[in-house]
């Protein structure tokens, strides 16, 4: 036994069906600090753990897009009408129809960068090390195994109880994971 505090208890499954059944069982017992680790997204798990559509990221992206539009128009208006006005064939200085293309492009640019960095931010990445990486078999979660972790942060967490519960759900292995 190490002296480090426990991070959680991890069960390894061979099949997504077993994983979903296990998540449902753990969730119905009242555990909430539960996370699964899978080689590809499994929507049935997401529906149990966090029902409803993802709302934070789309809102951020919308805000990013609007900021892009305003930035592009503001930049072009400032340059064409105030900073460096040029009379081109008598056209108005704020010839906004000609500005639409760049407004469109910067809308897409800002929104896309928000989507990428927003996702990383909301995921809490980059995070080079995580307690779960201490578990050697955890490397299989990007290949063909399905992991379920009940975290020690859960108010109901009790090592033996959780281990017993997980062991009864037909896993390949149940292991304790410690913080570094």
């Amino acid at each position: 036994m190490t002296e480090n505090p426990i991070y959680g208890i991890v069960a390894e499954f061979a099949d997504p069906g077993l994983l979903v059944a296990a998540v449902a069982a753990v969730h119905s017992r009242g555990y909430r600090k539960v996370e699964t680790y899978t080689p590809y997204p499994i929507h049935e798990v997401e529906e149990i753990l966090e029902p409803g559509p993802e709302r934070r990221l789309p809102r951020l992206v919308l805000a990013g897009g609007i900021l892009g539009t305003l930035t592009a128009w503001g930049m072009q208006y400032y340059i064409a009408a105030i900073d460096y006005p040029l009379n081109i064939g008598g056209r108005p200085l704020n010839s906004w129809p000609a500005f639409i293309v760049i407004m469109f492009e910067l809308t897409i640019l800002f929104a896309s960068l928000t989507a990428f960095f927003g996702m990383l931010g909301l995921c809490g990445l980059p995070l080079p090390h995580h307690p779960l990486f201490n578990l050697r078999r955890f490397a299989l979660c990007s290949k063909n195994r399905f992991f379920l972790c009940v975290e020690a942060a859960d108010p109901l967490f009790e090592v033996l109880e959780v281990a017993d519960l997980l062991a009864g759900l037909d896993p390949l292995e149940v292991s304790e994971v410690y913080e570094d």
Partner: protein
Amino acid sequence: MIIEEQQRHAQRRPDPDVTLPVIGPSQTFSIVTEQISSVPLRRKMPLLWQITFGIGLLLVFVLLISATYLFGKGVGIFGIQIPVAWGFAITNFVWWIGIGHAGTLISAFLLLLNQSWRNSINRFAEAMTIFAVACAGMFPLLHLGRPWLFYWILPYPNTMTVQPQFRSPLVWDVFAVSTYATVSVVFWYLGMIPDLAALRDQSTSRLKYAFYGVLCWGWRGGSRHWRLHESASLLLAGLATPLVLSVHTVVSFDFTIAILPGWHSTIFPPYFVAGAIYSGFAMVLVLALPIRAVFGLHNLITERHINNCAKLMLATGLILAYAYLIEPFTAWYGGSQFEIYAFHNRAFGPYAWAFWLVIACNVAIPQLLWIPRIRISPKPLFVISLAVLYGMWLERYMIIITSLHRDYVPSAWFNFTATIWDNAILFGSIGLFITLFALFVRFLPMISMYEVRTLLPFSAPDGRSEK
């Protein structure tokens, strides 16, 4: 475990709605993961890869030498002369950027339409986009008289107190192309994060572990992460779809906003976009067919994929043929003698050879794709795709040169002939593309592993496949 997975697979009944399977028989999570990750992690590259990489690298040296000579001597080393101020460089730019379009179309548009067959070809199609845009982006800079002052096109506070002119399509182009490049890289990288984590987990040495570990930002595959990842992918796909249509539209504005006969036409934006996607699918096939043969990926890139790509090529080719037909009609119907002359000159003037080759390569030869057997035969398909790529390059050459070489005043007429440096830089850019693509195949997962896993039987909890 693997045997068990295979046994369960054997019980699967074929889907009656689908004639050709998306994925080969007897695949499991482990087989797919190991097959794809073994290329960057373990495998010694096959001889054909080494030869291709060598040729690419050789051509990159040609590019470097010609670019150095160009920077020393100026654009006079090209065949261009007033009034033909745009020659190979702009032709190459339009050609390369068009090739990129199919990659974004496959990754973004087909994702939104839930076309799961795209899952095994989207990764390298996106890589193709990025490298094609990189090649394209080079040419406007090489074509500048003073390339070291390229940043003058960007708005920034400067001591000269001048600013770019936002009413000019050339400035729009800068924003369109740089946005396209950035968004393509972001989309490609976002999709690759889970696969880079898989490579980290499979890695055999500490160096590889660190390399892929840093690149994947510490991805763990948690359900909340997948949810955000999926949300971000869909949002980026939604943003990239209008973007890809806008990029070649803006490129076509470079031509249509000029009042030159043969350029000044409202059909250009859709015509250019269709042509771009057409050449892009040709490039997808030119890359996919050898890759699948060399790395034995017939189970992942199946006949279904090449059949679908061929069909899309045929469809976009027909749109292009329609544009070829409508252009001279509009000129005739409009009644402007300069327009009519421009099209007559295109078909029967000094560059008639280019016009008829374009018709042969882009309209006539691809009609073979109506034959189902040809759509799934690698060799004829490869040759047809090469013909389309050549035809599309020649089409841009024809549009640029024939419209410019006959000015309104006959005293200014001038025939363009390419110099050796024009050709050296064109082939050099092809070399750059080949080299970058070969390096991508060597070091990164060329097929999206996590998306392919969702295609496998038993990937969903109820025993069917997730997609």
